[in-house]
């Protein structure tokens, strides 16, 4: 890295699906666009998405009657009414276009085979005639929490195929990608974002990028759960962290953390929901399908939060399978047959072979729930514009847009990446059209100097301390065991206390490696405090939220409480501020009234306010919480009352 100052029109931090799709939109509009990525972009965690991408194309027999409206309903119910319903509606409609666009970019989607097909549904093998006129269209597989088969897929490598196709467009457009770089701070003046300070992960040097518009697309924060996550090692939440550091941008719903039912024991590697979608079962130590009794209607295909809780309950009830790595359950896909496993679930076949030495056509797969997805993130309006800081946008898992609320449906995040990439990319381009790059570089250089001082401080600190990796492991243990699948006030309070101690310790921790260059220990140390701060916002948010909603389950407050908690948590916490500041905004305009999800618990504390009264205050209240104006009015893309045609 030679220059200490780089300028560009649009800066995209993160080279996964959401960031790259957004960059394509900005570059296609004629903006000089720069992507920063921790890794070569094709190694971003989007590549690990396996089973599918939800879009209501309705091309196969079991998708008949599907539509964006049904997709919208599934998404809102899946979110346990935590989603912004207008955003969910925009998403459901645009997912169709976005998936077809990926076909245009070259994704080899699995296609409908007209004629007789064999499927496994709820334990039975069935023969279904696929209409000949649908032959060759993009087909679907079943996933959890959906009324119809809707997940479009390329074997079990959907994310890989999508990421490679999107990255090939990035190459075609000649967009500059700087891999092995990491944004360590945002440059801003308190009301406008001006770019970011970046650390080069080849040389360890810092530089500053000044941009008209900056996009955070850094994925989730799963690694605050230490080893208890299916996420890649690079999902440390640094995009959310540098936004939080500003003190003006709030993070939304940080306590909304998804646990995926089926990750491999002991490694925590994801085994796709497509296994259950294609007819796989969960078995306990008696080889019984406990989900049939627990959820007679949806069985293994209830939403992830519900299935994960039943699994942990089964283990607590003593019907888990003992192993040296703790108890687990079994995933059984043997009956799907070797041919199916070696084509449509090929990646699962490989993972079983490589990591537990098992043949899934003959043997059971040891699984248990593990942290998987971050519903929370940088709070943005429907244009992807962050609250509180003009010119800062966020997309994908890094953002809280917020179509997932308190539980994301499987396959919805992969479509979200490209839907928001397209949509927010357009807004980013419009924003960049309207402004000129500031000639004042002093704010940028001040931020650069501050980042260099932080690195220097780590290198010059001396003495004895626990290693930063010990602190990381302690954080992971606290998060999984006290801020996990079943939460309660007592343990959450302990978690807050203990995370506070770790934060103090991290301020005086000492590095053992002082080598010049990237220095991997320093690279992690520079993230550690940010990770601990994110962990604290999750724990404190979970402690404050005295209800159960979606993936946030409080044993001491087991009911969803639409009277007091039909809202979104916002947290602001500047780097030099003492305590995080929590506020609560309405989730958004409500069209589908809160009700039963169709699985899980049917008991709740009902909303007492009328929908009209609620909706009347949403726009003003969200503005007071920092929402910046949207290009189109709020509610303009809500199809009010359309759901009545489907649900009666």
């Amino acid at each position, binding site marked *: 890295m030679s220059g200490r100052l780089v300028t560009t029109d649009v800066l995209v931090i993160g080279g996964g699906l959401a960031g790259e799709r957004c960059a394509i939109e900005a570059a296609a509009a004629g903006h000089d666009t720069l992507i920063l990525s921790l*890794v*070569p*972009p*094709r*190694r*971003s*965690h989007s*590549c*690990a998405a396996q089973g599918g991408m939800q879009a209501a194309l309705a091309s196969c027999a079991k998708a008949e009657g599907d539509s964006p409206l049904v997709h919208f309903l599934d998404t809102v119910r899946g979110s346990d009414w935590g989603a912004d319903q207008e955003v969910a509606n925009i998403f459901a409609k645009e997912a169709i*276009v976005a998936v*077809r*666009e990926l*076909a*245009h970019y*070259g994704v*080899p*989607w*699995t*296609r409908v*085979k007209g004629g007789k097909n064999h499927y496994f549904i709820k334990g039975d093998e069935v023969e279904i005639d696929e209409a000949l006129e649908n032959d*060759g*269209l993009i087909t679907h597989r079943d996933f959890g929490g959906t009324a119809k088969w809707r997940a479009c897929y*390329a*074997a079990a490598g959907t994310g*890989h*195929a999508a990421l490679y196709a999107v990255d*090939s*467009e990035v*190459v*075609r457009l000649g967009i500059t*990608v700087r891999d*092995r770089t990491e944004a360590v701070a945002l440059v801003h003046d308190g009301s406008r974002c001006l770019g970011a300070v970046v650390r080069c992960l*080849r040389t*360890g040097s810092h530089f500053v990028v000044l941009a008209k518009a900056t996009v955070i697309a850094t994925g989730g924060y799963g690694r605050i759960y230490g080893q208890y996550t299916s996420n*890649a090692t*690079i999902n440390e939440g640094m995009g959310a962290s540098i936004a939080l550091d500003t003190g003006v941008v709030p993070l939304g719903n940080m306590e909304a953390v998804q646990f995926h039912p089926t990750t491999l*024991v*002991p*490694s925590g*590697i*994801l085994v796709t929901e497509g296994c259950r979608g294609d007819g796989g079962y969960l078995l306990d130590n008696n080889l019984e399908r406990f989900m049939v009794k627990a959820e007679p209607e949806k069985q293994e295909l209830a939403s992830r939060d519900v299935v994960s809780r039943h699994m942990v309950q089964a283990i607590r009830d003593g019907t888990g399978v003992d192993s*040296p790595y703790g108890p687990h359950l079994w995933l059984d896909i043997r009956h799907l047959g070797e041919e199916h496993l070696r*084509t449509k679930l090929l990646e699962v076949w*490989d*993972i079983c072979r*490589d990591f*537990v*030495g*098992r043949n899934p056509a003959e*043997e059971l797969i*040891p699984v248990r729930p593990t942290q998987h997805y971050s519903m929370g993130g940088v709070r943005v309006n429907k244009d992807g514009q962050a609250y509180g800081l003009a010119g800062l946008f966020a997309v994908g898992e890094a953002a809280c847009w917020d179509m997932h609320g308190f539980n994301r449906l499987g396959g919805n995040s992969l479509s979200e990446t490209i839907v928001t990439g397209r949509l927010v990319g357009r807004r980013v381009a419009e924003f960049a059209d309207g402004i000129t790059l500031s000639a004042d570089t002093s704010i940028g250089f001040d931020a650069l100097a501050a980042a260099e001082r932080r690195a220097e401080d780590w290198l010059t600190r001396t003495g004895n301390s626990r*290693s930063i*990796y010990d602190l990381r492991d302690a954080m992971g243990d606290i998060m999984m065991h006290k801020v996990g699948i079943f939460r309660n006030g007592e343990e959450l309070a302990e978690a807050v206390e203990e995370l506070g101690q770790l934060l103090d310790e991290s301020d005086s921790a000492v590095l*053992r490696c002082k*080598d*010049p*260059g*990237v220095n*991997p*220990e320093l690279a992690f140390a520079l993230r550690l405090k940010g990770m601990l701060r994110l962990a604290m916002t999750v724990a404190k948010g979970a402690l404050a939220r005295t209800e159960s909603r979606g993936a946030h389950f409080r044993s001491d407050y087991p009911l969803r409480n639409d009277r007091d908690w039909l809202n979104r948590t916002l947290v602001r916490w500047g780097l030099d501020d003492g305590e995080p500041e929590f506020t609560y905004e309405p989730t958004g305009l409500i069209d589908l009234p809160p009700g039963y999800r169709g699985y899980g618990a049917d008991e709740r504390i009902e909303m007492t306010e009328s929908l009209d009264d609620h909706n009347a205050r949403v726009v003003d209240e969200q503005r007071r919480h920092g929402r910046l104006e949207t290009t189109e009015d709020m509610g303009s893309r809500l199809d009010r009352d359309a759901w009545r045609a489907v649900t009666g």
Partner: protein
Amino acid sequence: MARRDGVITLSTEPRKLTFEIFRYNPEDPQSAPHTDTFELDETPFMTLYIALNQIRETFDPGLQFDFACRSAICGSCGMMVNGRPALACRTLTGDLPENIQLYPLPAFKLVGDLSVDTGTWFREMSERTEAWIHERQPFDEGATEERMSDELADAIYENDRCIECGCCVASCGVANLDDAFLAGAGLNRVARFMLDPRDTRSDADWFDIVAGEQGVFGCLGMMACADVCPKELPLLDVYAYLRRKTLGARFVSEDDKKT
């Protein structure tokens, strides 16, 4: 040692593993290429991902290596394991002898220790082969997708599965001598687009990319690439396909000149 016998068990007598690891930090003027040796107790299902992190966190916090997904899908962690390119994350120590030598992949620029710059190599390859769909029409938001048989989709996916880990490049005698040789990953990428009817390039369009010394005819046929590919891509079939297509294109273009 817990092995592939279908039951997870704990070992009673863990092996002591010795790792000999290549070290060089190009950013440190004091650093010179050498190897360091570390010892670890083997644990059940230990992979090189687990072992290397233990070494870094316990013994040497400066050790550089790359992992991201740690599930053999992102392609970050290619390295030479006992002289053979492999993905470290899916290499079980139980499949290796007690003495384990780890070196960075050759043919790529060294970043430091076991970390190499594959990103630049693959971006250049993608640019040179124009590895994107050269489509007939711009995308029409209102249109249904172009139809494709599921068999063809499967066939394209088969080539699309390459994770660009660079193991084939590192194993290739030609690629080690010629930076511009497309090697297994590059040739496979070309075949993937040739096979795709959505890409309108003709065999003749492909000719210059595939036919030269840096394309399929530069291959000496030693096929180490196919032996080391962690995704078991059918590279032999890929090269046969490319040779056939290229020769066909040549004859067509010679005929064109005559008429």
